[in-house]
């Protein structure tokens, strides 16, 4: 975005220079620098591997997803140009020298239920809402 502002501010700059201010497209970066785009990664937590199968009755483990990756243009389904411009303007009004950077975070979350014994061998079935990432996106 900063590049974009410079580009608009200095129209008389030669086209060549303008090229350098363009946000690098995916194709321009060589493989090593290209960070992965924001997406959901899987991290399977096995209660058996944690040695907890004596007190956790179910589930045996659960897929604890997490979001990671680069949030850059092109925009995604959630941040279309209009929204982005609105966010940009609002942030600029509040913190003029901050350039808002969209971050890779959950966009949908699932509940998970766990069935386990307590110290008195009573059994507890508890539902944890919004605990497991279902999808990620750029906020």
């Amino acid at each position, binding site marked *: 975005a900063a590049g974009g502002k410079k580009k608009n501010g200095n129209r008389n700059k030669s086209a060549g220079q303008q090229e350098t201010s363009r946000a690098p497209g995916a194709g321009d970066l060589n493989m090593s620098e290209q960070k992965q785009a924001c997406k959901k990664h899987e991290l399977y937590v096995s209660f058996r*591997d944690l040695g*907890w199968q004596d007190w956790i*009755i179910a589930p045996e483990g659960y897929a604890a997803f997490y979001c990671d990756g680069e949030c850059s243009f092109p925009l995604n389904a959630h941040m279309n140009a209009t929204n982005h411009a609105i966010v940009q303007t609002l942030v600029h009004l509040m913190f003029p020298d901050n350039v808002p950077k969209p971050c890779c975070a959950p966009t949908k979350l699932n*509940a998970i239920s766990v069935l386990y014994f307590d*110290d008195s061998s*009573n059994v507890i*079935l*508890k539902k944890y809402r919004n605990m497991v990432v279902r999808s990620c996106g*750029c906020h």
Partner: protein
Amino acid sequence: CGFSDNHVHSSFIYRRLRNHERREIQREILSILGLPHRPRPFSPGKQASSAPLFMLDLYNAMSIEEEEGIQQPQSAGKGYGGKHYGGYSRMAHYRAAPLTSQSPPLPPAAAAQDTSFLNDADMVMSFVNLVEKDKDFSHQRRHYKEFRFDLTQIPDGEAVTAAEFRIHKDRGYARYENVTLKVTVYQVVKEFPNKDAEMFLLDSKKVRASDGGWLVFDITATSNHWVVNPQQNMGLQLCVETLDGRSINMKSAGLVGRGGPQSKQPFLVAFFKVSEVLLRSIR
């Protein structure tokens, strides 16, 4: 470029956790579960006891609801939060229907067609019966059995929205073959050293001595009372009599107490709604 549903199977390589990683993950999960430490339940073979089996049915029902994300038809009556949950009481009614010898063994609670009340619950907890010995005789020659449950282990912020006492009944002795029995549950209000306790009638069911299955008694009000006033928790008393008022002992009626198999032990199960939303801090 829609990021919303690109579930990409990451190249996360499956590997054994190192000790410090394992401790870190354990600490993280315990904090999510809201537990100060990992529980160390005592009784061996506990997984095959009646309460865990019942709770596992509920867990499977809840998981199916979550996976299918099916919207439960709002239960009739005032819905879950009101005094009378159509779903729950309909279900309790469904399960409390008098046992008949033709009736199929009661399906696990979870399989009952209306589990919307289950879906509304944030937590379900089953409690083991703490009474060491089954008293089976009273001063006025009345047979009864005592049951005690410790409801002080309930995590803060949970409100009991439904509770039931479940006791298994096998076929009774042959001499009562065609007799109809009345099984009654009382809340013990006050105990005395040399006379019968003062009691409050909670619920009663009529069953044929020859029938078998789980008997379910609604003790929601009592459980709420015990949670708020734990010092007044004197437990429950259960007695069985014929319709002409003759008291008979549990064993000959086929009721299973502590002496019975693990899978038929009596237990209490309570359904809770979180009274305040517990927010997990972001890590």
